[in-house]
């Protein structure tokens, strides 16, 4: 799924990386725990989270994740946006909850990353 479609499905606001919205993501992972992102993600996913701090961008960087959707209307601060810009990352924000946002994306064809499947 293209990030542009993610943006439209979630009526999301784009904070940075507008120029990368043509990028494709193969699957998605939702969590507020960065420890679990580090433990469970194996491929390049779209990250959905309600956690907003610079470590979300750092975690994404280590995992080669290029796009993050902040859910529940959370918005990243300037420091987070600047950090993401320096890593060529796309930051989005949706008013949807994690569950609803995930449901919309799944229904749109973006599946989750499950171990052993």
């Amino acid at each position, binding site marked *: 799924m293209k990030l542009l479609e993610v943006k439209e499905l979630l009526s999301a606001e784009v904070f940075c990386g507008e120029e990368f919205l043509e990028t494709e993501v193969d699957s998605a992972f939702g969590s*507020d*725990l*960065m*420890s*679990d992102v*580090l*433990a469970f993600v194996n491929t390049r996913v779209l990250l959905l*989270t309600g*956690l907003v*701090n*610079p*470590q*979300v961008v*750092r*975690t994404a*960087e*280590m*995992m*080669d994740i290029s796009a993050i959707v902040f859910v529940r209307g959370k918005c990243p601060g300037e*420091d987070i946006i600047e950090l993401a810009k320096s890593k060529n990352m796309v930051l989005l924000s949706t008013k949807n909850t994690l569950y609803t946002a995930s449901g919309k994306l799944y229904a749109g064809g973006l599946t989750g990353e499950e171990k052993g499947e």
Partner: protein
Amino acid sequence: MADGMKLQFVVDDGDFTRAGETSSKVKKTLTQLGFSPEVIRKVAIAMYEGEINMVIHANGGTIDVEISSEKILIIMQDRGPGIADIERAMQAGFSTADSKVRELGFGAGMGLPNMKKYSDEMEITTEIGKGTCVKLTINVKG
């Protein structure tokens, strides 16, 4: 290849917003040196977990990275309280992190298990009241 390249970094105490900068620098260096994405990913994740641990549990410390075409060695030496029970600390889900750390998205008890998962060798030496040293080896060639 950069045989015998050695890097040293200082990890500041308690500066959570900057935690991960060292891992980021090493990731960039390895990318420039042309290591495979798989090796870079393993080093980045294992080292980032270690760096976070040094900041949240251990008053900071130093990280030495030795890069060769055979393997990448990461030595993380902290000034923390030491680990009382390494076996328990290695269990997924066991954590001594406080609620502040958990609010930041860490402290889920996955740090050491993750470091083991993403490295080929892991050695921990620890002394109560003095600090902990974690040595990670990531093999470049399978």
